[in-house]
């Protein structure tokens, strides 16, 4: 089993109210070294078997067409996870 990761971020020029709220909370905690926070999305697409070039190309197309909206977001990266995510742990090994 393989995992393709798609990373999507809100466009840099757009206000990110959620990130701004987190930045405000950090400031209240005294974490003044972090001047800004932006929140994006990470999709993990599980593939049974090997990730062929065709599958990766399909994921790239989906990233552009469905997983992101180019009016408001940018696809930052689409890549194959080197080590598959362990079932049930919710974290990369």
């Amino acid at each position, binding site marked *: 089993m393989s995992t393709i990761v798609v990373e999507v971020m809100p466009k840099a020029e757009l206000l990110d109210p959620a990130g701004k709220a987190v930045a405000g909370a950090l400031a209240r905690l005294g974490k003044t070294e972090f001047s800004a926070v932006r929140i994006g999305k990470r999709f993990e697409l599980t593939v049974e078997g090997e990730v062929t070039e065709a599958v990766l190309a399909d994921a790239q197309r989906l990233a552009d067409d469905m*997983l992101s*909206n180019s*009016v408001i977001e940018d696809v930052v990266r689409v890549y194959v996870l080197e080590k598959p995510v362990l079932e049930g742990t919710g974290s990369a090994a």
Partner: protein
Amino acid sequence: MKIGVVTFPGSLDDRDAQRAVRRAGGEAVALWHGDHDLRGVDAIVLPGGFSYGDYLRCGAIAARSPIMSEVISAANSGMPVLGICNGFQILVEAHLLPGGLIRNNHGDFVCRDQRLRVENASTAWTSGFEVGQEITIPLKNAEGGFIVDAETLKRIEGEGQVAFRYLDLNPNGSLDDIAGLTNAAGNVVGLMPHPEHATEPGFGPDTPDAMRSGTDGLTFFTSVLEGALARA
């Protein structure tokens, strides 16, 4: 005349939209997101709510549901389609209207009776208004900030595709105070405020005459019905 109202998982205002259709004198037809059948309707309303829990992006998953392939091809053939709130988000995600809708710039959900100016009274859903007419209908959303790239904004402003603009205040940070849009043909209209909630005295926004007496939203539905009669 039959007006279909599509119910998606998470639609909230489908029943209100059906009622608004009936109050305007039309026959409301319930349409189901999972079908490929428009059941012979003459116009379609995509109602408000939180389809698919706003997962992925507001309207993004609904825009790719089975019924939407029928809605998109009907819209491209000239059938009147109205998207209200989440329905507007679905129209944008389905590329029937330009731009995108993002989190309100102040970060909060907003619910208020919103004054609007009608900017385009030549669409299927606004022909009963006058250009420049000021109307009041409820607004309730958290992700109603309309954005679009500068070039498209210039085009839609220049070509009269801004159908409604917010008055008094901009409740969500929308560019150019844009509350609603039409496509170039005028058959597809989307807006964040809710006309279906201002169709019955006693349940609408307050007016100078009486509390909750506002029925400005009814004109959306009578417009499309009268337009169909005129064509018949």
